[in-house]
């Protein structure tokens, strides 16, 4: 998986949200600029949304990390 242009190793079957949390990467900044992290872990809250392979607003918790997948957070 490539996060904000940097290649990282992620084990098979790990969700993008879990992988970002492990790497201490903030997926999203709120309108106020406040850093947010995953809340519900099950596709409800949209707090872990990131851009995946160019598609914005993807819920990181609902997508498995894959080799070569490009993930961009609000930090990147």
């Amino acid at each position, binding site marked *: 998986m490539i996060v904000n242009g940097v290649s990282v190793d*992620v*084990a098979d*079957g*790990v*969700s993008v*949200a*879990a*992988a970002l*949390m*492990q790497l201490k990467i*903030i997926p999203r900044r*709120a*309108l*106020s600029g*406040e*850093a*947010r*992290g*995953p*809340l*519900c*872990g*099950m*596709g*409800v*809250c*949209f*707090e872990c*949304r990131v851009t995946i392979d160019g598609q914005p*607003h993807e819920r990181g*918790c*609902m997508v*498995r990390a894959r080799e070569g997948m490009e993930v961009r957070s609000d930090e990147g």
Partner: protein
Amino acid sequence: MKVDTLIVGAGPAGLAAARGARSVGRKALVIDENWNGGGQIWRGQGRLVVGVAFEFERQVVDLRGLEYDRLILACGARELFLPFPGWTLPHVVGAGGLQALVKNGLDVRGKRIVIAGSGPLLLAVAANLTKAGAEVLLVAEQTSWTKLARFAAGLWRWPSKMAQGILLGNPRYRAGLWPVRADAGGVTMSDGRRWDCDYLACGFGLVPNLEVPRLAGCAVVDGFVEVDEWQRTSVDGVYAVGEITGIGGVEKAEAEGWAAGCGTKIQGDHARFVSRLAESFELRTGLRGLATPDTIVCRCEDVKLCKIVGFHDRRDAKLQTRCGMGACQGRICGPILEFLYGWEAERARPPILPTKVSDFVRKTRVTLD
């Protein structure tokens, strides 16, 4: 393609419905937005049903365009989150939420975790996080020791629920305690004590996922989909099973799913456990006062509590403040507003999830001219 029985949700209720449908020779298709079956409780551990078609990573944004003779809704429940100062900080996670993230690969070995909120789920989460190597410092249950003792004393009626009784023996478990303020490195509880922690895992019970049932036009009474003993909803050909008809756990979900799948009456009395759960873990009204005027209520649109005063209902507040208008479409702040002010949700309109216009048009066979 038209299917005989379309089942939405592959948790315990949906899987039981699939088994039921299969047993009477019906052709069933189960769709679920997760990448594997089992729902939130089994998460990938649920046994799929041979002879039934499954489509994962498939979201329902609209019911138009889906063809079926019978529709069985097994949409499950989500956690209720309550706003308090600091609840939007990145280390404040759902209780079931953190568990889901751990099951999906988050490593919590050595992490100090405070679990707080309400309901039997907290203890199950504590056990699972401990097994995953975390250090659970405290499990704070908002209900009183008295209510908890009554709940525990009644568990013998449901031998299959005895495991919950054993979990109640967790030495870190405290009743009558709740979080009042989270800060960057920890949380202060209602007894004034502050705990340093890596994560604060919070969940104040479960609320049903009513978006799809509402989309189908099913009547909702007292917060749950209304069904008869055949699990039929108010809409012809539409059945509801599992947590969306009342929070009652796996056994109830499976019994209801099986009944709807086969087309038989529900077996066993589950209503008593549902009401016992609801009474035992009823949220104390004092929790309504946790949020201060500056506390964010709608996390998508950053709407603070002080902005949501003087409105009559959710729609009024939404139109004036954008509360509930963000990406989650009010899934998080909706139940909060219901708890704070008794404002119920409006009817659901498609698309019930953020969708690309091109996908929406294609899936629903709407033409743009």
